[in-house]
């Protein structure tokens, strides 16, 4: 029995990946060029041409920076909320089941339903960041909670015998031991926060990639619509990859 791709060497795997990607891009181009999927599927070259057009850069740049700013604010707030709730529940076990349930309930509300509430409650400008924060907070809460429970029994026993206080156990054992799991949460929370930001922007933010998507769609600017989607996807991938490096470092050091 062959184990297929799993056994291939690094360069061979990379070559396969590149071949797959090229195939995907060629198919995209062909479908767009021959209008196989109708008018709303532009050829790849149109999208690239638009993204490469310096006249479009100010528009795209303003939208991208607005979205990144809202996403970053929401992401950081999500870290504070998610990590804070997880540490709180860890330190006060009596609150743990309740916190778990609250997090699950909040997460089960579709963010599209939260949007109008945030607009009324906060403002159009901060709704994007608020939804991003809600998305990120849940993921980080789950990751941090499981991470804080990750220390081995031997290590826990050691700190009991050493007479460690709850706070010192948190500082010396549970927090460092949670970092691998937490770093995975930080990574997964990035795309979630970005989605939250874009959904939030649909509720009438002054600018941002989400706004651009809605405008392009309503004015049938198909190439612009796809360009924005490509921009969002690449931003998400880039941030995700950067945090994968952090994750790898955390696993190497703390696991």
């Amino acid at each position, binding site marked *: 029995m062959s184990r297929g791709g799993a056994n291939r060497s690094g360069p061979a795997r990379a070559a396969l990946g590149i071949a797959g990607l090229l195939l995907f891009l060629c198919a995209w181009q062909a479908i767009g060029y021959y209008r196989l999927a109708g008018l709303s599927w532009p050829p790849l070259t149109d999208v690239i041409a638009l993204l490469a057009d310096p006249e479009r850069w100010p528009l795209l740049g303003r939208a991208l920076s607005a979205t990144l700013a809202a996403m970053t604010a929401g992401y950081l707030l999500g870290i504070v909320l998610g990590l804070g709730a997880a540490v709180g529940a860890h330190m006060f076990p009596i609150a743990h089941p309740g916190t778990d349930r609250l997090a699950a309930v909040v997460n089960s509300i579709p963010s599209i339903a939260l949007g109008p509430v945030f607009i009324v409650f906060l403002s159009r400008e901060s709704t994007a960041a608020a939804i991003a924060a809600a998305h990120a907070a849940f993921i980080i809460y789950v990751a941090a909670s499981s991470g804080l429970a990750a220390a*081995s029994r031997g*290590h826990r026993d*050691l700190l*009991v015998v*050493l*007479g*460690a206080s709850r706070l010192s156990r948190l500082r*010396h*054992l549970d927090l460092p031991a949670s970092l691998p799991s937490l770093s995975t949460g930080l990574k997964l929370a990035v795309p979630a926060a970005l989605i939250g930001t874009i959904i939030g922007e649909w509720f009438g933010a002054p600018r941002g990639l989400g706004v651009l998507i809605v405008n392009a769609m309503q004015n049938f600017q198909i190439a612009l619509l796809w360009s924005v989607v490509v921009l969002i996807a690449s931003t998400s991938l880039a941030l995700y990859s950067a945090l994968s490096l952090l994750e790898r470092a955390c696993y190497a050091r*703390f696991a």
Partner: protein
Amino acid sequence: MTAAIHVDRARKTFDLGKGKSVEALAGVSLEVRPGEFVAIIGPSGCGKSTILRLIGSLEEPTAGTVTIDGRPPRELAGAHRLGVAFQDHALLPWLSVWQNVTLPLQVAGVKPDDAKIAALIRLVGLEGFEKARPRQLSGGMRQRAAIARALVLGPEVLLLDEPFAALDAVTRRYMNIELQRIWTESRITTLLVTHGVDEALFLADRIVVMSGRPGRIIENLDIDFPRPRMPALMRTPAFHALYDHLADLLEPAAAENEPVAGGGES
């Protein structure tokens, strides 16, 4: 004279759920004098580790009392006066040897005295490996780091739970010689749990033999080989005679214990 460790008719029952329970200790009494090195030997599952966990404040007895200098173990642990080394070295993987050894001081809020730490690391033979992480060390070196960590607080009681059980025979023998040397310099009240008869004989002032299960003490044997003890001791007829005596004691207990279902040491 007050006993450093006083275990009085301690019983321990573990609840297995669904109304079932298992008796790990059936009324065990044990006294360890200040500065005495006592080894507990017995078959797997005889409750010897449970005794150690009671003294280390990791478990509470179901009945009976466990005290250290008349106080509950929790107080001594809270005052950072206990040293411990487990079979699993329990070094924190993200800390260097130096940081692992100083961890008990950090927990106790004591400022580490660099010269003292360096001396301790030299004592366990890890000089030059201060910056190494546990995963870069061999099994024997990890256990030596764990021993140094157990000693760093200058504890009143040292608890050793099969600290060398995971090592190969040669390393283990070497570690016993090292531990003997280190202990002779400090003379801390020490309780060693092991199933190595030779290890117990070489290290201890007194050997307590347990049978299981439920665990009870079946023999209390003073070992008066003079200190410091040299490896040559292990080749003397007196050593072998005691070895055979203890091995005989363990034999029927081990055979009888075998069919009992359920987990190992607890």
